């Protein structure tokens, strides 16, 4: 496939992620921070996010499985996850965390369990989306092309 075609695919794919609400403007902020001195910045931060989040999700699963649930601890973990997802522009993950915190506040265990499932789902979806995105970028770079910048005028 020609580089131009892959570049077009990347632009269309990225735009669809914004349209569908997977990404918000904060992701563009992240992309704008990337430069020649740190060409893998976005991929590095996103990768850190996924590693960090996986740990948090594991902690949450354990915390909600206790005979007596420590809602403060649960809330603290969700707060972390909400913060990091917000910082990279992973909007659906962030929104799932907001809903989760509401149930923590009223100490509703069933609500929390449902929310945990939802956050996990959003996490895996986001992970897949980002992996596809970075794969497209890698294909472009491998073919000698440059990564097109997304304009927010759509």
């Amino acid at each position, binding site marked *: 496939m020609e580089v131009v075609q892959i570049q077009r695919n990347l632009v269309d794919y990225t735009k669809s992620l914004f349209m569908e609400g997977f990404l918000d403007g904060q992701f563009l902020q992240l992309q704008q921070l990337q430069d020649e001195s740190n060409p893998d910045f976005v991929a590095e931060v996103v990768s*850190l996010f996924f590693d960090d989040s996986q740990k948090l999700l594991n902690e949450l699963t354990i915390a909600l499985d206790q005979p007596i649930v420590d809602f403060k601890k649960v809330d603290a973990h969700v707060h972390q996850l909400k913060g990091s997802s917000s910082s990279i522009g992973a909007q659906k993950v962030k929104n799932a965390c907001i809903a989760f915190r509401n149930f923590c506040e009223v100490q509703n265990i069933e609500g929390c369990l449902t929310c945990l499932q939802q956050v996990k789902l959003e996490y895996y979806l986001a992970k897949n989306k980002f992996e596809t995105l970075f794969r497209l970028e890698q294909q472009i770079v491998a073919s000698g092309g440059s990564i097109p910048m997304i304009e927010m005028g759509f």
Partner: protein
Amino acid sequence: MDGGCSGDMAAEFGDEPHVLAVDDNLIDRKLVEKLLKNSSCKVTTAENGLRALEYLGLASDKRNALDGTVSKVNLIITDYCMPGMTGYELLKKIKESSVLREVPVVIMSSENVPTRISQCLQEGAQMFMLKPLKQSDVKRLECYLMRCRS
């Protein structure tokens, strides 16, 4: 303390501004560090208030161990919600220090709580910023960083 903090030398006028960024969230630390580095700042990060105080020479067991009378940093930017010591508590400790009280402190938070904001401003914080931080937010810090650039 994250790796990459180099040297204990006091910041000197004419050099790059040196910012201490405090946040318990790893991703947020990376983000604020990059935002500041892109604005030509030297950045030291700390993952909590205690580490920040240790770096600044204000840890309780080393209260009088400050090198000279000049602060190492030109600006401190800290998250509000941190385990152990909140950003507000860190702010208070900094303002209690004769050497460090002149260093501008900026508080960040993901939550827009008016009472929290006024509490911090009353305690002497220069600014309160809502997370996630953007490039336009770092632009607003320029006035504190400009003083260092000759």
